[in-house]
């Protein structure tokens, strides 16, 4: 079911933590809310779930407005970062709990009688079958009668997923569900959740600060910062056409290099080198700001978009190696450019270093003079004042490039 946020704002007194966020995803999409700690992504998720109220704006699920409904009335399941299992219940009861609550009557509150009724529901063929099928899917069959405290982190996480799945909700909401797992298990669970999405369908809304999770799992990413939406698009769109310098630096490891440049006509000048822009490249409206026909921009280049050549060769940028890191399949090389400013932060605080990645084991030494060839195929241009994207690689339609085959784009 489509999820739609319309001008959603959340304030605590004078403090606005979510500022006018609007986004919409279609059926069966895997939406990732991405951003650093404290950017408001979890708050958005909690508002969708109904655990937080909305200060203004509306939330719709499948065309129905839900922001006034209690959490239980929204037909959504929530997977918590801390799993939030019921420690006093067995795995079986944990998974069956949402189903028991569906048939809950007030007399279930009466201690012994209530327990009998709950057990009866739990043992009814349909609930038992559903719980066992879910457990089977998550490889939990063997631990069904154990308590959460006896399980490993990965198993607890799967119980939390099972409790969400068993309700067959119209949306799964997950709040950094993998952040408590070790790196290896995280990779495995990442694949499991992606497969789960493909198998059970439905909308997934997934909060993470890990861009790898976002890029690999999401069919759509909403990148947040300080409570406002920075960019909303497919992983490819966000990677290849970042909307601003913040997005450019947030996505990608190492992040995109931002090099001070000037665009004039179909060329871009970096330092003393004048490089031609490829055909079809989007350019800023020439000199709109300065009236000189030139636009001052940050040229955004991924670390892989450089070639290391002998110093002084062709139109290469001159620099000195300051750091060489070997990470196996590639080497990361920091190069200090001579006479050219670069930016490490989206606020444009100037430095003069770029990060270059080259395949294989690099024999370069610290202090060595090198030349950097810029490959202007995948690149972005950002306005130096606003940080917004003003041009870059040739226009291309990224909107249907999701992880899952055919994604209906929100209209």
């Amino acid at each position, binding site marked *: 079911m489509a999820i739609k946020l319309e001008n959603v704002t959340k304030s605590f007194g004078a403090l606005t933590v979510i500022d006018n966020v609007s986004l919409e995803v279609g059926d069966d999409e895997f939406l990732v809310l991405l951003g650093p700690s404290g950017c408001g992504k979890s708050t958005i998720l909690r508002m969708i*779930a*109904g*655990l937080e109220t909305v200060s203004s704006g509306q939330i719709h699920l499948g065309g129905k407005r839900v922001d006034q409904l*209690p*959490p*239980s009335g929204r037909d*959504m*399941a*929530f997977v*918590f*970062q*801390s*799993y*939030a*299992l*019921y*420690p*006093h219940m067995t795995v079986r009861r944990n998974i069956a*709990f*949402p189903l028991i*609550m*569906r048939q*809950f009557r007030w007399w*279930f*509150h009466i201690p012994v009688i209530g327990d009998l009724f709950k057990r009866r529901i739990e043992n009814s063929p349909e609930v038992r079958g559903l719980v066992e099928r879910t457990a089977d899917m998550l490889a939990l069959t063997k631990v069904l009668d154990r*308590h*959460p*405290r*006896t*399980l490993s*982190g990965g198993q*607890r996480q799967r119980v939390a997923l099972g*409790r969400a799945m068993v*309700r067959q909700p119209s949306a799964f909401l997950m709040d950094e569900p993998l952040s*408590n797992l070790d790196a290896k298990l995280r990779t495995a669970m990442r694949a499991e959740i992606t497969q789960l999405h493909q198998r059970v369908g439905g909308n997934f809304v997934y909060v993470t600060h890990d861009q790898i999770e976002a890029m690999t799992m999401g069919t759509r990413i909403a990148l947040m910062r300080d409570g406002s939406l920075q960019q909303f698009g497919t992983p490819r769109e966000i990677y290849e056409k970042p909307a601003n310098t913040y997005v450019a630096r947030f996505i990608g490891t190492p992040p995109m290099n931002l090099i001070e440049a000037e665009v004039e006509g179909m060329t871009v000048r970096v330092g003393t080198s004048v490089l031609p822009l490829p055909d079809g490249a989007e350019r800023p409206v020439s000199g709109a700001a300065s009236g000189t026909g030139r636009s001052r921009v940050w040229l955004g280049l991924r670390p892989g978009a450089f070639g290391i050549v002998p110093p002084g060769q062709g139109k290469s940028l001159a620099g000195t190696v300051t750091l060489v890191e070997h990470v196996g399949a590639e080497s990361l090389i920091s190069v200090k450019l001579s006479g050219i400013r670069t930016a490490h932060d989206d606020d444009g605080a100037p430095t003069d270093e770029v990060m270059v990645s080259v395949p294989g084991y690099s024999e370069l030494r610290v202090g060595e003079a090198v030349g950097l060839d810029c490959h202007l195929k995948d690149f972005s241009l950002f306005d130096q004042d606003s940080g917004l994207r003003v041009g870059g690689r040739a226009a291309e339609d990224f909107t249907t490039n999701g992880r899952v085959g055919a994604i209906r784009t929100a209209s």
Partner: protein
Amino acid sequence: MIKTHTARLIAVLALLGVAAFPLYWMFVTSLTPSEQLFSPSPRMLPTLSQIATYADAFTETSLRLWLVNSLIVAVGTTALSIGLAVLPAYALSRLDFRGKLLLGFALFMTQMLPEAMLVVPLYDIFTQLSLLNTLLGLILANTAFTVPVVTWILKGAIDGVPSEIEEAARIDGCSRLGIVLAVVLPLIAPTLAAAAVIAFFHGWNEYVFAQTFISDDTLRTASVGLASFVGELSTPVHTVMAVGIVYTLPAVVFYLFVQRYVVAGMTSGGVKG
């Protein structure tokens, strides 16, 4: 290592001796023939031939009735205190409302009033409500004193229940009451047990109200009954001691029964870390 172990053992035994000796001395005294009670060289060992003192305590006094009355009062106080304290404790822990701090503080304030000060006003109220000379009245008076303590103890425990577990229950379709009963209470079971012990002991040991509000002999509690032996002219010391021992036993049994629930780690495994 062994040294610290031994030192600890000695310290524990010393403490145990200090705590247990009075009880032991009660036991020895209860089994000492009356003519030896005031002997200048007291016997350290009980005279087992005197064991009939215990049978006499039951046959010659209304001990059985007193114990039953005490049990009714203690159990009633415990049940009512826990029942009344759970929801306020939850509210103080989880809900935000105006005057929350003041309310919590006011609960504490009630603890600072001595029982004796409240005897007269309560007597007046109980007269009007026909609660004088009833065990229910006694239960209510005791509960008034235990509810604030129990509320604060339970609030502390509820504070420790991760809020995610409650949120999970909300999403799974639990009402607030459902969350308290089905999720929170089982998780704070050890603290409930501890609170029950406190309320039970209060009800079991209470003397001032029981002495003042109950005049009917058949409704006397054991604390008052025990005190009634102390006469103007004579006090049957060994009977008092025997009754004292018998009076102590149910409380100890109750504690032993409940203390196995007072185990740590009930909430472990529900949330990470």
